[in-house]
């Protein structure tokens, strides 16, 4: 069985994005003076979550459809 590279990429980005979003929710807004007062952890975390979700979806879907296909 072959590993589809999109699955590990997707999982890594889902966990990194999740971490950043949670941290963005609970962190003190004062630390965002650097990033022009945008809560950058929250927004970039969401972007990474979306990317990770898309990668995982396509990685899993392809594995299900053609179990023996090349990655």
């Amino acid at each position, binding site marked *: 069985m*072959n*590993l589809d*590279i999109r699955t*590990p*990429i997707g999982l*890594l*980005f889902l*966990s*990194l994005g999740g*971490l*950043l979003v949670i*941290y*963005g929710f609970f*962190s003190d807004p004062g*630390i*965002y003076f*650097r*990033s*022009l007062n*945008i809560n*950058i*952890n929250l927004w*970039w*975390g969401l972007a*990474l979550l979306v*990317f990770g979700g898309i990668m995982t979806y396509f990685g899993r879907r392809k594995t299900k459809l053609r179990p023996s296909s*090349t*990655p």
Partner: protein
Amino acid sequence: MPSLPLVLAAETVSTKLLSLSLPDLVIIVAYFAMVLGIGWYLKRQTQTGEDFFLAGREMTAWIAGLSFLSANLGSLELMGWAGAAYQYGILATHWYWIGAIPAMLFLGIVMMPFYYISKTHSVPGYLQLRFGENSRAFAAISFAFMTILMSGVNMFAMASVMKVVLGWDINFSIWVSSLTVAAYVSLGGLKSAIFNEVLQFVLIWAGAMLIPILGLIEAGGWENLKMEIAGRLGRSDYTHVWSTLGSFQDNPMGIHWTGIVFGLGWVVSFGYWTTDFLVVQRVLSAKDLRSAKMAPIIGAAFKMMVPLIVILPGLLGLGLLDMKLLPESEVKLTGGYSYNDVLPLMMARYLGPGLLGLGITALIAGFMAGMAGNVSAFATVWTYDIYRAFIKKDATDAHYVSMGRWCTIIGIFVSIGTAYLVMQFSSIMDYVQALFSFFIAPLFGTVLLGMLWKRATPAGGFWGLLAGTVSSIAMWFWVYMSPGALAYVALSPHAKPMAENMYRGLWSWIICVVVTVAVSLVTRPKTDQELVGLVYGCTPIPSEQHVLLWRRPILWAGVVGAAFIALNVIFW
């Protein structure tokens, strides 16, 4: 393109630039766990020599293409060229556009069929098929030597950066990162190196993309940034790629357009992208010829976008940073920050706790991608082109795989040794670019003639390669012994080392081609029968008539080529 040598005076710096908090560390640890996990998972799939050294020849065009680019996109590359953009302005973009795109498209469309159809496992392997054992031995030994040296130099420079930026101990950085690379490459072979390179490529973008986004928001858009830079420097030539190259004096780099087009765009860039096995190996792992042709084209499409996360941060530093950055040599005397620190400085400017960890992970990922590229290429060339060719000819496949695994680990240890050597004699860094140009330019001449001219003979190929390399070394020594010779070698007594390398590359390429042609004409050529699959005119190249138009490599090469021209016009 190889990274600029960063000469860092790590031992003189006591204050660190950034400090990490808990979420940052969690992100970095998650990355290391993922990388090792992939290596461990792939170990089960890596049984044969094809699996270990060529990733089973089953990579898709996208994976091969992204890792092709990622193997080159080391952290020193990122930081060095961001620094170059601060120092020379947007001219540094030429190393990403004309210095890469034409060569990558040429590799995909013209050269890849011969590499791929010949079923070679390496570039020295191709030379053996085409020109015989002598050429192979010469290319393999010089490549193995260069690769390990480069790997050691990069390792040291990266550890120095970590020391400056995060205050990490040099020994700690060297050992942790290199043992991780040793583990995942020796477990899963090239497939593991390639998968991790793709992962690292995505991470580099995720970690670095915020800098240009937030930077452009702060500057108020690209036009405002250009005005800000022009206002600060009192000159407007930092934001044009071609319009200032009409004379040596009118631009920050002191270079003429002929140097950029012929020196960089032809010899240096084609030599690197089409014959450096480090990058070519990635494409050889493609699953079929169409994927092998598409891979460099996909790589080229992304290569064109890399200036967004490398050159633009340098320019933003020029327009927005309050402090003035200095050359490395001045930093050693007076303190402060050097040009090469501009990327970490911009990170420090915008990224707070959390995202900073992602940014640092991007730098570590870039570094490990480069090192994995070096050791996996080294392991292949050592095992197939030196060990199997000259030391132990007919062992079992399993024996060569275990040789490859051990050699990955030994390669890493030799690199670590080299890193400590560089630490003692930091002037070695100054010579790395020169060393690199000794071998790569003549090799390009030999491979190009080998592929396109069937009259080239084994003797011609070998003597051409030897003459080109020896003359390149001789020219370097000539300038080293009597600096006045620069006026002959680089056409100008005021040439910078970068210009000298380019012109020396050009001369040694010409010498290689002339000697190859001359010797070939007086020696006996191989018969057409022997050249099938190796040379233009003797190789049946599968027609693409039956392939749907939108799946044909030539179409996409055209699209990338058109975008390349458009970008050059837009930033003219």
